[in-house]
């Protein structure tokens, strides 16, 4: 058992629904940005701008997400969360690791496939790695929020 300490500033006690919505905006926004940029390589100025705005929305949504109490639980040292929370955090990081390994494998395949698929240019692979890196930072927090069953803090 480890001592339990409530989250300190700057972490904000956002509701589970808010954190879930922020996670969809940030992680979903980044993947949408990547896919749209990949599928519309020669988009016109307006479309390019809209796709760029998607990445901006994702980045802005990631700020409150990473300042929520779920982010605290995802990143706190063992001494500041209890043993159940440590277990949940470890599960979230385990799934994030699987996500990252799958993503890196995809990136390697994309690098090799460039010989046969010209659309998989180096900037595309670079964008894929960027999305993988940024989403893996937010994923443990998102997983904790999506797995939370909304148990009230008291009675």
């Amino acid at each position, binding site marked *: *058992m480890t001592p*339990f300490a409530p989250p300190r500033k700057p972490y904000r006690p956002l509701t589970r629904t808010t954190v879930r919505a922020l996670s969809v905006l940030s992680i979903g926004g980044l993947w949408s940005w990547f896919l749209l940029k990949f599928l519309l390589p020669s988009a016109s100025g307006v479309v390019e701008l809209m796709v760029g705005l998607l990445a901006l929305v994702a980045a802005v949504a990631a700020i409150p997400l990473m300042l929520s109490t779920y982010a605290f639980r995802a990143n706190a040292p063992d001494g500041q*969360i*209890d043993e*159940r*929370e440590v*277990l949940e955090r470890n599960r979230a990081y385990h799934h994030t690791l699987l996500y990252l390994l799958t993503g890196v494998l995809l990136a390697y395949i994309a690098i090799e496939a460039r010989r046969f698929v010209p659309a998989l240019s180096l900037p595309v692979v670079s964008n894929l790695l960027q999305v993988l890196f940024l989403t893996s930072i937010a994923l443990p927090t998102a997983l904790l929020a999506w797995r939370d069953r909304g148990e*009230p*803090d008291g*009675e």
Partner: protein
Amino acid sequence: MHKASGAVHNRIALFRTERGLTRKALAELVDVNPQTIGFLERGDYSPSVELALTFARVFGVSVDALFSLDPFPSLADQLGAASPIDSEQS
């Protein structure tokens, strides 16, 4: 190797109610998040030996009285078994 199945039964809710404690108050006594008390009471989480011993100390009972690998008999069954009226009738 014993496979963790999460099937550790407990009487935390019973003892907590009997002592008139809220989940939050009990959580403070055993130094965990109040949500963890809910997980334990529902049987969704099995505590470590250290946490089980802390609960036993807080309630002033043995670990056996609080935790079991087998389901605890219901209060009605226990009262029925102990009732002298029932024994006389049988």
